[in-house]
């Protein structure tokens, strides 16, 4: 019984998704919000508050799913995500200005 639960939690922790940005692709986990992971990959994203109330880091979400552990104060338009607090839940494609 204990042997089945262990790999499951391990798998959950290492859940990795692809993020497509134009021709670039980076891998992200569900451990942290998208913004810090984009920054670590050297992708410059606008930010201000980094806690979901200023909407500076709003990015177009072309397809895929994200979720928010806390509902952000900023208005999140449909088809957009707030990078500072969004947790990526599937492979996604994002775009800055079109």
């Amino acid at each position: 019984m204990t042997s089945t639960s262990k790999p499951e939690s391990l798998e959950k922790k290492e859940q990795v998704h692809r993020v497509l940005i134009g021709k670039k692709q980076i891998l992200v986990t569900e451990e942290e919000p998208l913004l810090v992971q984009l920054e670590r990959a050297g992708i410059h994203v606008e930010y201000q508050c980094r806690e979901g109330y200023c909407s500076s880091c709003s990015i177009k979400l072309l397809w895929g799913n994200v979720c928010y552990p806390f509902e952000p104060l900023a208005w999140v338009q449909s088809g957009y995500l707030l990078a500072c607090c969004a947790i990526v839940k599937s492979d996604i494609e994002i775009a800055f200005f079109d």
Partner: protein
Amino acid sequence: MSYSTFNRKKFDSMKEPMFFGENVNVARYDQQKHPIFEKLIEKQLSFFWRPEEVDLSNDRKDFQKLEEHEKHIFLSNLKYQTLLDSVQGRSPNVALLPIVSLPELETWIETWSFSETIHSRSYTHIIRNIVNDPTLIFDDIVTNEEITKRADSVSKYYDNLIEMVNLYNTMGFGTFNIPGKGDIEITMPKLKKALYLTVASVNVLEAVRFYVSFACSFGFAERTLMEGNAKIIKLIARDEALHLTGTQHMMNLMASGKDDPEMAIIAEECKDDVRDIFIEAAEQEKEWATYLFKDGSMIGLNAQILGQYVEYITNVRMQAVGLDTYFETKHNPIPWINAWLVSDNVQVAPQEAEISSYLVGQTDNSLDDSDFDDFDL
């Protein structure tokens, strides 16, 4: 219909629209039609700060060492910020409180406006610290043509709405002849249009105009000059980010029709007007940049770079309220501004270093005598 400070009617405030419904009577927050405004109030309260907390003694020395054209940039920018917050410290109250219909939104408007008065107080704090005679600076705000041009464009939508609401409250609907102004027609769609355009112009003020002025303040701090001033502007920028979220919510709620179906029609009709407000403000800000740097630029910032930032930030803000972007500039020409704008390193007391919005007095009231059972004296 005239305004009442305590509406005697019994009605369900959960069914009222944000504006132009019943006047608010009981200030109750246990139920909210739009909980976002209650959350904004809480956040704003957690941001409370006072300008005197920031020491500006080094700024005085820095200011005296600035070159003449840099003093012009610094002071003009400060005058402009003073103008913007003079308007914002009163206008949401004067224009919006008589027509608001939700208690949580009414209190958000008051909280929002109050925080703008702290900004105004901080400009006085700054000016008093860097010059011997603040009167010279303050007087110039009402006489300097470059500043007064801006005053006209930031106050005209407010003033128009206030005038129409005054007429509506005293006379009701109809066409009224106002000496010197001609006939003014008051209908509900016209009132709502005036409101929508006012909220849009406030959003432009907070989301575009303020940010252009922040860029200048932080431009000095990038060169390790006027750093006390930058600390204050950082606190102001944190508040403004919240305020612009408030106006974006108002605009998007209106446009969605979820709050008031008639407002959605008006928002749709006003799309081009709102677009024009954004573009006009951006052009004015670019003109302003030329005026700021007329006698010379400073390291890292000149009229051209600031102009590109105006275009960039206008695009970002237009997109945030569902408009197509207008300008070519798609990248931030001054990416260093983010490090100054970021709120999570606003200086805080050591015990609250983890979070900028520290809540005071968070005690655990659920303690029971049994919790002390393992205590030995």
